[in-house]
């Protein structure tokens, strides 16, 4: 029962963490797919896997929109945007009533995704037949489905008085160029619509779940089940990490291969830089319209031109022993909290330094590439992108 603004803020922050955590797990699975014929695929497999990857990436983009809408809801009730989250893995009931793991694509991952998105009234999906943990199913805690948490938030929003004190102009209503549906929150009615939209996208309706996240994951799981023995994902380790974190649970795969570890650290460093830009974009600390537009563009461009390529390269690199079939992966590590300087000038200097550091590290790693087939080879292009992004950001400081 959410009975005041403080509790509603707390619930919305938890919703933001959930959306953030879900989308990263979806991205991780999508980045684990095999892509090339020389990975043992036929050209028909390659196209089929492309369809699955596209579907999962699309769901992840929709979760990004959900995260943006939750930030709008926070803003509408006078609270700050929320991009903090605990590191992976998160065992069930430690923070959330879900088992949060970075896990390669396969039936076990799809089973967990279906549990996340389970619509009210639907029976739980058939259990994964492999080595799934016994406690993977949602626990009957305060809430056991994402939709249930949103139900409590909606109830509070439509009953608590005097909630909407945040300025509307501080909300994000852009589609980010990717057909994302971010909803503006003005009052209880629009807040309820925003929540309904999030739940509808996740669960669909009893009459039609085909295009919901649940329905799309269900379809992929069915198609995968019809291909016994087909392993469309690289042997990406579960919950790869480069460093111990106090807030991470057990079941970690340590990335110990020297180059892989550096690329994984670089990935998480850039991921955190992108979160800083997003936090700045949503926080309104005196940035000009031009600066805000550039922060938004740079965040989107970093996702497409830096983070995704880095993640795709990581899932081709060794986890530890070069002779082992196990691959590393994007750890999405939170090395430190996402906290902005109160001074705008400092924020921009820090971003500039971070892009310079990332580009330099990328150059060093790319120089070690043995040839075009080496996963490190693509880092040359990624370094170029980082440098150009830095130039763009620097231009707004003038």
């Amino acid at each position, binding site marked *: 029962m959410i009975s005041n603004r403080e509790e509603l803020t707390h619930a919305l922050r938890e919703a933001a963490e959930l959306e953030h955590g879900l989308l990263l797990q979806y991205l991780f699975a999508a980045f684990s797919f095999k*892509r090339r014929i020389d990975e043992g695929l036929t*050209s*028909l497999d*390659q*196209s089929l896997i*492309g369809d699955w*990857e*596209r579907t999962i*990436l*699309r769901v992840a*983009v929709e979760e990004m929109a959900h995260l943006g809408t939750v930030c709008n809801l926070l803003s509408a009730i006078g609270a700050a945007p929320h991009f903090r989250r605990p590191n992976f893995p998160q065992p069930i009931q430690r923070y959330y009533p879900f088992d949060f793991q970075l896990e390669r694509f396969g039936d076990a991952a799809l089973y967990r995704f279906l549990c996340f998105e389970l619509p009210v009234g639907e029976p739980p999906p058939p259990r994964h037949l492999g080595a799934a943990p016994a406690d993977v199913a949602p626990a009957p805690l305060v809430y056991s489905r994402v939709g249930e948490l949103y139900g409590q938030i909606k109830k509070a929003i439509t009953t608590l008085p005097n909630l909407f004190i945040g300025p509307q102009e501080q909300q994000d209503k852009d589609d980010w*160029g*990717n057909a994302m549906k971010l909803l503006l929150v003005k009052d209880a009615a629009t807040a309820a619509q925003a929540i309904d939209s999030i739940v509808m996208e996740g669960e669909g309706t009893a009459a039609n779940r085909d295009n919901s996240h649940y329905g799309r994951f269900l379809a992929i799981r069915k198609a995968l089940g019809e291909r016994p023995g087909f392993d469309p994902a690289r042997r990406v380790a579960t919950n790869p990490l480069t460093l111990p974190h106090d807030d991470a649970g057990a079941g970690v795969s340590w990335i110990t291969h020297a180059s892989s570890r550096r690329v994984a650290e670089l990935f998480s460093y850039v991921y955190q830089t992108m979160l800083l830009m997003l936090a700045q974009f949503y926080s309104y600390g005196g940035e000009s319209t031009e600066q805000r537009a550039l922060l938004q*563009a740079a965040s*989107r*461009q970093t*996702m*497409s*031109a830096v983070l*995704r*390529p880095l993640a795709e390269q990581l899932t081709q690199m060794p986890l530890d022993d070069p002779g082992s079939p196990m691959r590393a992966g994007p750890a999405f590590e939170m090395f430190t909290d996402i906290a902005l300087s109160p001074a705008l000038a400092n924020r921009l200097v820090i971003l500039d330094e971070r892009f310079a550091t990332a580009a330099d590290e990328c150059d060093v790693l790319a120089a070690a590439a043995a040839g075009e087939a080496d996963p490190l080879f*693509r880092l040359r*292009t990624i370094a170029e*992108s980082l440098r*150009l*992004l830095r*130039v*763009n950001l620097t231009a707004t400081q003038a």
Partner: protein
Amino acid sequence: MLTISFQGWIQVRLATDPDPFDEPRGISGYVRTLPGEPDFDRIIRLHHPVAPRPHTPPTGVFVSTVAVNGQPQAGHVWIGAPVEWLHGPKFEGRNGIIAEDVLEPVLPFVMRVTAAGWHLERGVGAQHQHPFKELWGEGAGYSPDELSAILGATPAAFLQQRVVALQSDLTAVPDAIAAEGIRRRLAFLSRPDTGDFFRWGMRWRYSLESTASVSVPAAPLTPVPDASAPWITTFQIGAWDPDALGAYLRGMIVIPLVGAN
């Protein structure tokens, strides 16, 4: 002034946002490879297309008219000669880091026209730097009338002809990979917005100022291009056909002549 106009279909095999600009197969954008096709390489090809898809317009850009000091040169030997862009030019948008969609500069940009003893070759030069704003395009698609003239039909009718041909192919093709490719193309072509892509377009104006490579036949009345002054090329790319991975290019290059004011 020597004015050479050119037009024709180009091929551009590239992934679109939000895919990374160097994505080889096309995953999250609307442009994708078909089973069995080679990876995307982003190169703008005016000739010699890679793995052209059946029932799509033939790639090739050729000189359409030549004029000297505004006077059309009917039957000029250049008419029909190939126009080339050298060194693998690309739309260098890089997911918007350099420029957003329909603004992207074409880089590198070196143009060549050769025919009957003539050779003209020149590029924009290496003086341009990120974000290359002077090389950005501006959004400008072909008008409906221009599109009808290019396609010989409305976009919808133009694509419907292709759909009919592909459906016919599907009944006869024995190869599972080719059949899957046709099914995917038909699924894409069934999208209600497929014809809308033809309205997209861009227009550029480049001053070619690099060292020119010029050779002309030694005829007494041959107009001699002035390699010391900039040459100006303007061109438009539109009628974007994401099923064909191609578009229609139309433009001209204006070259000062030696001895002319």
